[in-house]
């Protein structure tokens, strides 16, 4: 990708980082949900009895 002025470069780079940030939020949510999914089962187990 070619940039004619520094503003172009910054706009492109910052836009990419904003998209990445959104993906990171989803990724962290997914990671946490994955890691704790079995914990919830353990916590919920006694409630059924």
């Amino acid at each position, binding site marked *: 990708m070619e940039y004619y002025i520094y503003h172009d470069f910054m706009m492109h*780079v910052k836009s990419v980082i904003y998209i*990445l940030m959104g993906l990171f939020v989803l*990724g962290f949510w997914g990671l*946490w949900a*994955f890691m704790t*999914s079995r914990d919830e089962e353990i916590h919920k187990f006694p409630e059924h009895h």
Partner: protein
Amino acid sequence: MSTENTSKASIWTPANIITAILLVFGLIITVLRFTKGLGTVTNLDQNNPWGIWIGFDLLCGVALAAGGYTTSSACYLFGLKKYHSAVRPAILTAFLGYALVVFALHFDVGRPYRLVYPIFLQPGTTSLLFEVGLCVFLYVSVLAVEFSPAVFEWLGMKKIRNMVHKLTLPLTVLGVVLSTLHQSSLGALYIAVPSKIHPLWYSPYLAVLFFVSSIPAGLSMVIFEGTLAHKPWHHMMDKTHLDEHDGVTLGFARGASIALAAYFCVKLVALAADDNWHYLATGWGAWYLLEVVGFVLVPCLMYAIGSREKNIPLIKWAAGITVFGIILNRFNISMVAFNWQLPSSQRYFPSLMEIGLSLFVVTIGVTVYRFIVSRMPIFFEHPEYKDAH
């Protein structure tokens, strides 16, 4: 007679013989370095003034000693007392790690009698090296005081032990502050050489990357060291330590997974901020992807799966891979991707004596560690101070 034979056999174990050989070779290299100079024992030159002694002994030593501040802050600052049994082994590893960093630095810098100059006589307050030196000097002192209760318990000095024990909380806070400062400063050192490091590894975020990566490095080192220590010192571990071992491993695995994910994110942001994506399609890119995917993302997922499935062996493998990955990262920044534009004839590769000296330093660490854990209350609580924390 039979007693003499038994004692002789117990001293000349394979581990002791290897230790003795490495120590003898290390001492010979030490004499050569301090009598004949750096040129005799190293491949360092004007292009590559810092080699494996900085890349491994210092950068890796400091990163892998981060288990001290991560474990003590988890236990004392975040109130996770279930990790208490891991604090002393972690503090010991951190203390030995930092003490050996200072020891190894003497070989690079030379003139050990001038060690106090940067702190007390000629402080270069505008230099990042001054900050690193000051922080390491202060943090080694903090770790020595943090570790001292184990020594006082061993020596039976109850009064002074109880006095020092009261300093635990302020020392932990100080430890976190100092670690944050110098872990990041080590990365910031390399911000000064943007033209020498390959763009995939160079980033204005190097300080952040070094600090963030030290957290999974420290947590992984605690798991890794616990795994290594479990077999030979099982008899020294009390019931509390053995009972809490799996809990510590699972809890730290979760923390390490999140920390590795955060490190991966900062790595991607660093890549995006300089728009260096096109380098990924080169040979250097393949090497970079191996580091970031193979030794950051893969152990992150292994930790996540291991903590979810309560799979301890998987977590231990993840810890080993993470420790190796951190070493690889520090090697890449300080040696492999450093001076990447130079022709191969001018590139740096450590001499056998440089590698030998690094092994010498590690051997000293392992020997002192073995001496301490075989005698002091590291894996067990001293009977007179049970539940004193």
